[in-house]
Structures are given as C-alpha cells and as structure tokens.
C-alpha cells in the first residue's frame, strides 16, 4: 500500500517494544461483538494510482464542462478565469498541508495571509473589519442573523424577497430550531428590487433586515435609505453579496452604512466545483467584533519586538467558550481564502475594476442582444453581470432543451422556486469575462428556435 510506510518487520519490532503479541491486542477495548475479523465484505480492495485515476476520469467525463459549451449559469456561483499562478501557489505543501495556525511561530505564512485577506475583504465590502472566512455565503448569512439577534436582543429578521432562495432555506431550517422569527417572501418579476417594501416592514421588534446586493434577479438597489430605516428602529442592516466581482464596479454595502456584510467569495480564485468548497466572507462595523463568529487574525509583536500575527479574540470561539460561543464553527475555509486573496492580489484594484467593467459591458451587450429575441423580455432596469429574462414559455423545459443542444442557458427560476407559477417563465442569465460574443449569439439563436 503506497501510502503506508511501515514494513512487516517494523510492525513486529514495534509490537515487541509495546509488549503486545499482535495488533489485535491493541483493540482489546472494542467489545467482542463489534470486532470485524477482516476487511469489510462487498467493498473492493486497494487499487493502483492508475486504476483510481481512470475510474475518476470516467466519472468526470460524464459531466458537461462549463468551458466546453456556451455557459450562462450564475445564481450564487460564477464562472471566472482564475490565473494559473493561483492554483500553483495554493498547492505549495506549506499551505496545502498545514493546519490551523495554532502555533504562530511556525505559521506566520498562513497568519500573514489571513491578515491580508481580512484587510482585502473589509475594503471590498466596505466594512471596518472582516474575519478569516466562513464555510460559504449561505452559512455566513445565517451566522449574521444570529449575530444581529445577539446585538439587538431581538428575534425577528426580515429577509428580502431578492435573497438567494438557498440562503433563505438555510435560515428557515435553522430558525425552526432556534425560535428566530423570519419574514420571507418570494420575489416578483419586476424591474426594481424590493427595498421600499422592506422599509415598510421594519418595526421595534426587528433585529435585522437581510438584503442581497445585487439580488437574486441581478437587480441593484441603493441601500442607504434602508440602512437609515433600520437604524431609526435600532435594527441592523445585513447585506449579502454573492458576486464579489460586482464590488469592483458598485458602491460597497459598507459605504451605504450596512452593519454586517456577508458574501460568497467563490468568484475569485475558487472555481465552480459543483458547489463547494467555497469561501464565506464576513465583515462588520468595528463595534460588533466581539459578536462575530469565526476566527480573527491579529497583529502583534514577538519577544524580540518583530511584527508578527496570531489568532486572536479566541474567547468568542467554541474551543474556549464551549456552549456560550458565538458559533460552533471550527474549521473554516482557509485554503479557499488563500485562493481568493492571491487572485485579489494579482488583480489589484486596477485589475478588479477592469474585470468588473468587462463583466458589466459584456452583460449589457448580451442583454441587448437577447432582448431582440421574440418572446424574451429583460426584467431588470439595473444589473451588474447577471440579469433575469422573462420568456414566453416556462423556462425550465427551455433550459433542458438548450442543454440537449450543448448550451447551458442559465438558471431557471422554476428550479429555484418550485411551485411558484408566477416565476416559472423567469430565466437568470450570468455573463462574465469568460462569455464570448459567439456564446451569446449561440444562446440567442437557440432561444429563438425554442421559443418560436
């Protein structure tokens, strides 16, 4: 077995040192009835590297690769080009095979990277501080709701109808058990986000309003008034960003006075990976840091006075605070945070802004082209790199028909909102720098045929 270095002679010598007659002697504490006397039946034995690679490659070939087809899927996971050096660097063994930096003297690489990541994220989101990552956007969103509950000591959260339905689902699941009250609603296929109606819902029991920016349909609303309305009622504004590249073009939620901003960082450095692992971004105003979940890296000095970094404010966390911790999160998404940070460093502000503008202008051009297809209407008045089409037919079968022609047309709202008939004709279309004019043309002409 290529991964196991002990030889038969080693094992014999080691058992002798231990004073055990056989390996079974080391498992004496297992109740006899539960001991297995050999390899579990019905499972294959070990296999060569070649055999395993062939097996997995065969599975991989059964999937439609985004790069091989005109591709317009988004809705919380976006396809962007990741520079080759990102993947090279995260595979350095010193990053890949390190543990959480509990021994800071020999983990300055990870710690400095996290400090840089926290600063990049805080600046991108427009918050004072950011933590060292969460699992993903959806879990970060729920954590933000619980954080608002702890800060305001109120239990009612108002969720925008434009919040990603999976994020709403996650919050609903958790709220059933924690007793939090969530006000939710399904979106409508209208040009503007639901900001105005959210403002009407805020009252003295509201802990927070959760709003996605841009929202699930791709619409963009100014958050300033909403923030002011929240604050007038001593509630918090939580903004959710599922496409961080958007913040290279759009005013950040922090600049509009959001209190907590969470996001899905997958767009930068991480790749699609069928939904995970991704990286949750989480920032907030400085006054709330002690209610934040997750890890923080902080600056300090060593015994010789040299600058160094450590994990800090750990008393919020489960390994110290146990049942009184701000969250049960332990392992987060360190390597994905590294990928995000490297990609962001390669881009820099100039690159990020340029990338964002390329996304936006290509999306604008695509929306204009698709709007000319008979039976297609663009719903949005505003958008970044994703917009919603209202088709003359139910969108889901259209997506399947186009998939048969090797075009991945977008995410049908029927998939995201099963049973909501008013949304069934909605199709969410994402356009990034990886989308070519030919791709758009292919989608437009295929739609034209299918909708005819």
């Amino acid at each position, binding site marked *: 077995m290529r991964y196991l270095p002990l030889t038969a002679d080693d094992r014999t010598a080691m058992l002798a040192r231990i004073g055990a007659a056989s390996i079974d002697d080391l498992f004496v504490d297992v109740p006899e009835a539960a001991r297995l006397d050999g390899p579990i039946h019905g499972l294959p034995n070990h296999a060569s590297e070649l055999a395993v690679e062939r097996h997995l490659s065969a599975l991989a070939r059964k999937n439609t690769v985004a790069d091989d087809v005109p591709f317009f899927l988004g809705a919380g996971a976006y396809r962007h080009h990741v520079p080759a050096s990102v993947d090279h660097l995260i595979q350095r063994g010193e990053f890949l095979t390190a543990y959480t930096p509990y021994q800071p003297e020999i983990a300055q690489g990870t710690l400095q990277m996290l400090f840089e990541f926290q600063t990049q994220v805080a600046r991108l989101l427009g918050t004072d501080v950011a933590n060292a990552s969460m699992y993903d956007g959806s879990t970060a969103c729920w954590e933000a709701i619980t954080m608002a509950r702890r800060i305001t000591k109120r239990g009612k959260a108002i969720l925008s109808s434009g919040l990603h339905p999976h994020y709403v689902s996650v919050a609903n699941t958790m709220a059933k058990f924690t007793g939090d009250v969530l006000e939710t609603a399904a979106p409508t296929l209208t040009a503007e986000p639901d900001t105005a109606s959210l403002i009407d819902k805020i009252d003295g029991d509201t802990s927070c309003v959760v709003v996605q920016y841009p929202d699930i349909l791709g619409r963009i609303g100014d958050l300033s008034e909403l923030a002011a309305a929240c604050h007038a009622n001593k509630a918090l504004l939580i903004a959710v960003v599922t496409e961080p590249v958007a913040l290279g073009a759009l005013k950040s939620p922090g600049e509009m006075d959001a209190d907590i901003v969470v996001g899905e960082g997958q767009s930068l450095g991480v790749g699609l990976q069928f939904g995970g692992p991704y990286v949750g971004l989480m920032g907030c105003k400085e006054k709330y840091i*002690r209610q934040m979940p997750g890890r923080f890296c902080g600056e300090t000095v060593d015994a010789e006075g040299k600058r160094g970094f450590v994990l800090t404010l*750990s*008393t919020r966390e489960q390994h*110290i*605070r146990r049942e009184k911790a701000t969250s049960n999160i332990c392992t987060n998404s360190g390597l994905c945070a590294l990928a995000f940070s490297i990609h962001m460093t390669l881009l820099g502000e100039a690159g990020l802004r340029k990338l964002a503008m390329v996304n936006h202008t290509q999306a604008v051009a695509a929306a204009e082209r698709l709007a000319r297809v008979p039976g297609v209407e663009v719903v949005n008045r505003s958008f970044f790199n994703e917009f919603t089409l209202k088709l003359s037919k139910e969108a889901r079968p259209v997506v399947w028909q186009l998939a048969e022609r090797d075009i991945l047309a977008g995410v049908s709202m029927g998939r995201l909102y099963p049973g909501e008939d008013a949304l069934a004709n909605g199709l969410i279309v994402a356009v990034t720098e990886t989308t070519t004019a030919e791709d758009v043309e292919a989608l437009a002409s295929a739609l034209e045929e299918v909708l005819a």
Partner: protein
Amino acid sequence: MPRYFTEDHEWVDVDGDTGTVGISDYAQGQLGDIVFVDLPEEGKELTKGDDAAVVESVKAASDVYSPVSGTVIEANGDLGDTPNLVNDDAEGDGWFFKLTLSDTSELDGLMDESAYEAFVAKL
C-alpha cells in the same frame, strides 16, 4: 467600609445600600493577563449568583457572578481601554460594577477578609 468575599472569588464593598463588586487579587492571579471585561448594563437587575460579567484572558473566559442581588447603577468604564487594571489593582481601581443592594441580609452568607484568606490558603 466592610468588604465581603464569595467562594467564587468575587468581592463586594458595601456603603449603605450601594455595593461595589470586583474579583479578588487571588482570582486575577489565576486568570493571568486580562484582555477584556464584559460588564453589565446600567439598570440591569441581578439576583445573587447570576452571571453578571465575563472576564477574559487570552485563552479563557470566566463568568463573574453577582455576590448579592440588586440593580446595576454603574459599570467601570476604565476597564474598556485598560483591562489590565484588573491585574494591577483587582481589589481597588479594577472594580467591575456598582449596584444598589436589594437585600442586605444576603451579606450574612459571605466571608469576611480573614475568612476568605483562610479559604484561599486551602485551595
């Protein structure tokens, strides 16, 4: 001004019906460098034994229980910027909060200074 101690290492100074609460010098020594103190808000009603404050070192967070019942009238704002006051002067400038006692008879169950010293000596 009489000073009373609990077995959980809180102390309370009593002046009329006003009590000043902190943790003992022995306790701060056990905790090590204090980095943060979470204090109760003014107006908070406390029953004897309630969690009243949290005192944090780098690797530990400890609850501080109210030695008596009463209403919080002031928290020591200096601890926000200089939590090390608890290390430097636990039984003086490092006090945590003041409260109005609702039942002075509760003091009967607490230790005086010499009883506390004897208690700590046995730990």
